[in-house]
């Protein structure tokens, strides 16, 4: 390859990566537009420190469900049971905690364990008995809700004790919050620097340092601004930290492990994946176990936030989680999806709820607007895809 053609190649590469970035930035732009719109309509109140703090706390449960749902949908399945499962695990946690006086740490573990176990149950039907996930989890949705009503004898279980409530109602002290943020930023720069060095060592192409570090700088700046805004209220909410941690873990799984790669391959082309030596059944099962465990965590946080377990807790959350994934660019056909996108999708959904209630618009409008946004988001995705596929 001579010098000139490799330059041309490089140029094309950058044009391409720019185009892909534009696609992923549309989501962020949409989010900013929604933020600005509501800020104007609420006279700035929407972007106040207090409300931002509320927003991030409100989005927790849907975000956690959406993280797991991204994997499920990428593997070309669906999970309709997560709302019921979060309700059930949250209910079990509350029953053990309130009726039997188990301590908080233990009931959290039990909730996650029960979630994982019921995920295993559903995953087994899907992976090893080839029953479509839609049916298995539709069944699961009814079964789990039924168990919850049975176990709780139809009662609301309350009140929780202080340290259970704290899970979703506490804030990191300012100093600790800033320390975490600074540590995170330093790590980001360190990993980027290390990766660049590795690539140089291996003789691979390295993009310009201004581009790489500049991007990081913009990210860091926005992290700091958000932290500052939150600190003006009570500090970083603990649930937000939980979401970020879980998102980090699952992004890591999706990009750095063979399991993560496998579920993208399975969703993209199951037959090709199988012939490439990927264990379809075991990986599918694992996806559902992880989804169940996440539903367990979501259930605990939900119970903690409501300060009670009710028989209808988590009702319809599966649809919000699926909508968040789809708005975030996850393809229902499988093989394509991003956890960051799903979380932004969740934030968009919650912002609409939150903004509209601040404007005192009646709740029925929220359903209508969210429904329309879901349809339009998918349409934008399809329309932009068609355009690129013609080229």
């Amino acid at each position: 390859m001579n010098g000139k053609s490799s330059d041309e190649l490089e140029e094309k590469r950058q044009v391409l990566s720019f185009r892909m970035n534009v696609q992923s930035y549309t989501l962020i732009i949409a989010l900013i537009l929604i933020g600005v719109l509501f800020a104007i309509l609420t006279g700035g109140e929407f972007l106040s420190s207090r409300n931002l703090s509320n927003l991030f706390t409100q989005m927790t449960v849907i975000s956690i469900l959406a993280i797991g749902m991204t994997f499920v949908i990428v593997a070309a399945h669906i999970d309709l049971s997560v709302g019921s499962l979060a309700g059930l695990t949250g209910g079990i946690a509350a029953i053990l905690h309130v009726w039997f006086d188990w301590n908080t740490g233990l009931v959290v573990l039990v909730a996650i364990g029960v979630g994982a176990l019921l995920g295993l149950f559903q995953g087994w039907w899907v992976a090893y008995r080839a029953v479509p996930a839609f049916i298995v989890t539709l069944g699961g949705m009814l079964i789990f809700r039924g168990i919850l009503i049975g176990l709780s004898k139809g009662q609301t279980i309350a009140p929780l004790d202080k340290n259970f409530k704290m899970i979703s109602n506490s804030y990191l002290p300012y100093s600790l919050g800033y320390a975490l943020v600074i540590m995170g930023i330093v790590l980001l720069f360190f990993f980027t620097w290390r990766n660049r060095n590795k690539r140089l060592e291996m003789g691979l192409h390295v993009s310009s340092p201004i581009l790489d570090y500049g991007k990081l700088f913009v990210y860091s700046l926005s992290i700091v601004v958000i932290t500052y805004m939150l600190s003006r209220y009570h500090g970083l909410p603990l649930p937000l930290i939980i979401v970020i941690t879980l998102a980090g873990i699952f992004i890591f799984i999706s990009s750095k492990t063979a399991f993560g790669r496998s579920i993208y391959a399975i969703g993209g082309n199951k037959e090709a994946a199988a012939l490439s030596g990927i264990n379809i059944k075991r990986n599918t099962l694992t996806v559902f176990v992880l989804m169940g465990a996440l539903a367990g965590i979501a259930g605990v946080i939900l119970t903690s936030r409501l300060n009670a377990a009710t028989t209808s807790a988590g009702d319809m959350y599966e649809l919000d989680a699926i909508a968040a994934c789809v708005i975030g660019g996850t393809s229902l056909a499988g093989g394509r999806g991003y956890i960051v996108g799903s979380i932004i999708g969740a934030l968009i959904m919650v912002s609409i709820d939150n903004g509209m209630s601040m404007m005192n618009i009646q709740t029925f409008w929220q359903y209508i607007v969210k429904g329309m946004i879901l349809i339009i988001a998918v349409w934008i995705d399809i329309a932009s895809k068609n355009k690129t596929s013609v080229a």
Partner: protein
Amino acid sequence: MGVSSDYALQMLNITKEFPGVKALDGVSFSVKKGEIHALCGENGAGKSTLMKVLSGVYPYGSYTGKIIVNGAEVQFNNIKESQEARVALIYQELALIPEMSVAENIFLSSDLMRSMFINRNQLLAEAQNWLDQIGLDIDPQIKLGELTVGKQQLIEIIKALTKNAEILILDEPTSALTESDAEVLFEILEKLRSEGVTCIYISHKLDEVLHIADTVTVLRDGQTISTDPIEELSEEKIVAKMVGRELTEFYPYENRDLGEDILNVKNYTFNHYVTQEELVSNISFSLKKGEILGFSGLMGAGRTELFISLFGGYPGKKMGEIILNGKIVDIKNSRDAIKQGLAYVSEDRKRYGLVLDMNIIKNTTLASLDKVKSQRLLDSNLELKRSEELAKKVNLRAHSLEALVNQLSGGNQQKVVLSKWLLTNPKVLILDEPTRGIDVGAKFEIYKLIIELAKQGVGIILISSELPEILGISDRVIVMSNGRVTGELSRADATQEEIMKLATMRSEIL
């Protein structure tokens, strides 16, 4: 080139640009009334784009130039308008509904199916009428899905004819057909020609082009290279025009020293896991290190089934022994097969070979994720490095390795599949129709690669329906028919006639 009524179609100075690419650059293409006009060119030469311009898939205004049908200029905004002007494009991928009857499919978009109440008897009678006219012995009541792909293709053509198509465009019509179905297609095309239907025939198979076409136009890099009557052409001349150079040595075969046996299969039999029908029975063969062993036979002879089964791709009971490198191995699934050093390049790369929505790098490493890890985690830098090495080895042409494989041409996609399997470091490489649907230049590169791998000691199984290919690069040829081995020929003894004789042998005789 003036406007003349001798022509059924004239496309003058057509230019079509996509962002960054000029797909067609001033192409002119004229087809006389009632002829079969072949359109040849490598993948990416612009054949399909030209036909999409003609049929209105790319609407008027998205290209420049003039289209004249039967002496009048036309400006199609969509496929419907081109159909109304009696231009019918028959796609490579069929646009039929398997669950509906043959008759319903034929009249799918006609008024017969659109009226409020469908008159079944009339529908069947009309369909029967058309089938008789064409000379096809098919019951119009049966479900379309029960027909072979070849017969389905013929139904698609009938469907076009019911709309009074005067210009038929066939895009790679025989790529999925058995030889007997292809013969039927040719007979029908000849019959249509005698009735004055004009036909544009796009194909990679030059023997077919020479057999059926009256005139050949060659495109290369979005430009018209030549239009000649068939009498003045030969396969070599067409290839030379397509690639822009003479291919003196099309099959780069060289004599090699072969090593000891690497794979022995003894009395291998297996049944379909649902129907229990015997798919292959009592197969025995051996393969040496560095040997290229051709597997020939008609479609449905059981070659693909045999090797997918050996590769662990089918569930169900298997009998017989597989000896790899002197050891009996038990292959339960593809994971086991890959571990034992087998690799299988499928005949259907889009279905079994690639994850189309993934980029080249991820497709390349898919079957060997363990090889691109550092500290038990996937290392994207290592993945990129391995993919770059392989892309160079197979001469992959892509603007970026981060491009999705569905953006690549057929030849380059096949090179990605090859890269994937080469990364597993196979001892035995099974190639199932490795050059199907890819252009001449890429074919030659793949042959060179196969020979190169054989020289390095990889045992190669080459399944191919193209006899020249089998004869061109195999050291030895095994012929199958009806799920059995009907003969084995050395390179010196193998001829097209000999192979066809063995391939058509009926199992009763055995």
